[in-house]
């Protein structure tokens, strides 16, 4: 009959042809994919034929020669896994690239395992020794990779679920999952008379639930807020209006960790805007800043109202279009007795596209002039 090895090859060949037909019907009859699949199918049937003919990769023939005491070679799940990998590969081709990659990984792993197993099985006639050889060659890689795979699977599945549900229910779900794991753990630990199969069933059930819901969540996509957030990118631009902005000013940060290198401190006190410079005692209304220098300006609000500091730094051309766009930078809304910093780098002198000013929306008519020589 067919040997183990050639069974696999013929299987793959069959699957390949099937996939090619499906591909032709469903996707595009003149695609590279079809050619590739057909190629695989042909190649595999050839190899399978050779394998069948030479009896290679057939552990049975070897084991037959072994004395009766030696046990038959271990049952192998690798052919099955290989085929599964092939299916994943095909599905991945039409559906999602991630599945395609998964297929490659599975095929690779199963191939290596199988090759080594069959190699080890021919190492000697002693099956115990063969197992030993196999383990020595593989266990150091098998264990961590398997473990890594488990972590990755749980992490990915779990995070997909969390991404799909709302933050509140996510937290609750998280607690529930953790509690479930704990409870099962304690139950198993306390009730020693539980059947092994029950435990196994529970574990498998848990895993399946996690994987399936993870898969569903993954396909259904992220929750709406996140999708919207990703599309709108709230924080990529600053909103420098007088009114508080929903995102830019959310939980605004009113303390400054930068203490070195302050070029000027701008204050609002009793509705008046003034600037203070190092080395000069009196408040000033004109600030001189060096060109192209990183300049840190502190904004300190001493009034009850919320204010933000806005730097108006002239205009610049947008690309080659000739359209002039204003350069504006600003702090977040700053509450009473709070400080925020503004880091500026002004590359053009104020003579070119000025005048430059520092203003506070809400305090109209007041400004600090910025001179960049």
């Amino acid at each position, binding site marked *: 009959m067919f040997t183990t090895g050639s069974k696999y090859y013929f299987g793959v060949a069959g699957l390949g042809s099937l996939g090619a037909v499906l591909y032709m019907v469903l996707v595009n009859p003149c695609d590279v994919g079809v050619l590739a699949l057909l190629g695989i199918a042909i190649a595999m049937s050839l190899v399978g034929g050779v394998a069948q003919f030479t009896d290679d990769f057939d552990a049975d023939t070897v084991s037959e020669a072994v004395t009766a005491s030696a046990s038959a070679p271990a049952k192998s799940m690798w052919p099955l896994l290989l085929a599964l990998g092939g299916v994943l590969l095909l599905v991945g081709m039409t559906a999602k690239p991630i599945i395609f990659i998964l297929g490659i990984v599975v095929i690779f792993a199963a191939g290596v395992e199988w090759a080594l197993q069959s*190699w080890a099985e*021919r*190492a*000697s*006639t*002693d099956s*115990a*020794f063969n197992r*030993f*050889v196999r383990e*020595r*060659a593989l*266990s*150091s*890689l098998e*264990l*961590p*990779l398997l473990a*890594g795979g488990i972590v990755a699977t749980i992490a990915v599945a779990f995070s997909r679920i969390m991404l799909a549900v709302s933050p509140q229910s996510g937290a609750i779900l998280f607690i529930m999952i953790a509690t479930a794991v704990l409870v099962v753990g304690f139950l198993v630990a306390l009730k020693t008379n539980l059947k092994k199969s029950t435990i196994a069933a529970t574990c498998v059930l848990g895993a399946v639930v996690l994987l399936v819901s993870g898969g569903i969540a993954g396909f259904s996509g992220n929750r709406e807020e996140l999708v919207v957030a990703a599309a709108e990118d709230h924080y990529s631009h600053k909103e420098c209006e007088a009114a508080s902005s929903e995102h830019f000013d959310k939980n605004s940060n009113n303390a400054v960790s*930068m203490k*070195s290198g302050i070029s000027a401190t701008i204050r609002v006190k009793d509705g008046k805007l003034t600037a203070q410079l190092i080395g000069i005692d009196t408040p000033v209304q004109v600030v001189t800043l060096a060109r192209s220098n*990183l300049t*840190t300006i502190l904004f300190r609000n001493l009034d009850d109202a919320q204010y933000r500091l806005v730097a108006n730094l002239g205009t610049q051309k947008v690309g080659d279009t000739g359209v002039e766009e204003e350069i504006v930078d600003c702090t977040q809304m700053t509450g009473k007795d709070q400080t925020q*910093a503004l*880091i500026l*780098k002004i590359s053009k002198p104020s003579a070119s596209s000025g005048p430059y000013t520092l203003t506070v929306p809400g305090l109209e008519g007041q400004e600090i002039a910025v001179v960049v020589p």
Partner: protein
Amino acid sequence: MAIIERPTPADTISLRMPVTPAQSMGIVRRPVTSTGWKSWVFTVDHKKIGIMYGVFAMFFFIVGGVEALLIRLQLAAPDGKILSADLYNQMFTMHATTMIFLFAMPMAAAFANYFLPLQLGARDVAFPRLNALGLWLLVAGGLILNSSWFLGGAADGGWFMYSPNSGPVFSPSNGVDFWTIGVQIAGFGSLVSSINLIVTILNMRAPGMTLMKMPVFCWMIMVVQFLLVFSLPVITVALVLLTFQRSFGATFFDVAQGADPLLWQHLFWIFGHPEVYVLILPAFGIISEVLPTFSRKPLFGYPFVVFSGASIGLVGFGVWSHHMFATGLGPISVAAFSIATMAIAIPTGVKIFNWTLTMWGGKIWYSTAMKFAIGLIVLFTIGGLSGVTHAVAPSDTQQTDTYYIVAHFHYVLVGGMVFGLFSGFYYWWPKVFGKMLNEKLGGWNFWLMVIGMNMTFGPMHILGLQGQPRRMYVWTEARAGEGFFNFGFWNRVASLGSFILAIGILIFLINVVHTARKGKPAPLDPWDARTLEWITTSPPKEHNFDRIPVVHHLDEFFHRKYQENTTTGEMVQIATGAQLVQAEEDNADAHIHLPSPSYWPIAIAVGVGTLGLGVVYGVPIMIVGVLIILGSAFGFVLEPSVADDIDYDPPMSGGQDTKELAPLG
């Protein structure tokens, strides 16, 4: 005779012996031989690892030395044309990096690995395979660092690689990437080996050897390893941040985002300053062995030397900012670090006094080893005193980043560390190779090095005080000044001196070759030495000691040879070293178990190296690296400490029922 045998691990007992496994087992068998190249590459023997560390370090000593000579050639005359500015910057960066990470640390590791177990009376270190791992990681790091010369230029930011000059914009070549990766890998190797050595010292001393009866060399090594354990992670953080910035676009040192360039400096020097003591303390340890031996007296004030060493280590963590007096830290931190820096001069001074007083009342034998040790005391003192002059922070603002600093740390590192290591070479060469280094050549070696060293680095004091900043690829007549103290004259003297120094070192290499070819065999106890490493053959057997010695004294070996005449107080010889060694052989332990060689340490190192290259060249290589690491790390963990019987060719039958355990892991 001792029998070296392998115990039978429990898990192989259940295994029925295979019929003919030999051929197909090929790749999965453990290396077990003790000769041939495999016995070196896969060894876990601390002595072989020590020698390999030494060879590796010596090679890079020569590389770094050639770099130094090129630098001096460039500066011998105004407007030097030997090197371009770019090449010069790479040259001094790699000179420092090579000398520190690839010569000084590995050479100290060579001594530590070889002599620590011998001085402690142990058969091997606590984790022999980790030991090998440390070595191979270092090799991987060294290769990656130096491969940059051929892959688009070496790092060019100076060895302290200040950000933002080391950032992707200001140093666009891959040099800095190779540098960060190489240093990180070498550092990881050092971390592994330092953990190993600490455990060895704390757990594997011979019976009777309390910590206060332990040789000073071991003490200093232990302090060094603690310094490494606690300082290396800090540089790792700095290097990780820099790597992330350079390779993955992180913003850590991007000033435009508000980053603070001083973060790098703090992280670097929190590592960098203890690192200085990492470099010098092993040399202190070596001469603390050499001086008593050749003065025929115990070390003066042993506990003071030990505790001053430990306190140098401790205070060394609290003075890093004295490298940053000019960076604008603010007067309070400057004052605090200035005072702390002065405080560290005290334990250092204690050491110098103790060494000096060790010789007082002694019977001094001026062997080459002793000459180098005395040279260290004198030259290190000069370096130490110039160090005090820039502990005074205001004075330091005139001196920092000038040649005065270069002079200072070369007096400390060449005059201190290198002289200490050479002292160690001459002292321990007969122990390691069983042949005496030629003393006459040794004399030439020593005097040329002394003259060369003083001619090279002495004038740099003047250059620095005359205002020549370091790291300048040229100096010009216009700023050189006139009269006796002009740059020109002293730069020439320094360049000349560097070649004399180089000739001195060359003579050492000649001496090594000469000794290997026709050196005379060493007697068992050539120096009338004092510590345990001399109580075995030279070179020591694979298992070090036939019988684990029981210790009663500090300087156990000496006290076995000499006894005090209780009435006259004179020391009377009661046995020769050779007799003692013979006695040990006669009473050898019956069963000695040694760990088997292993593939995994070098495999892990290959994996880490691949991962490192992946950071520079792309994610796929990184994945390969991670897989190799994962696989070999688990191989490492799952491997029993001794090889299974079937690993031998022909397979041996497991046998004698002995229970003694081989050293851990």
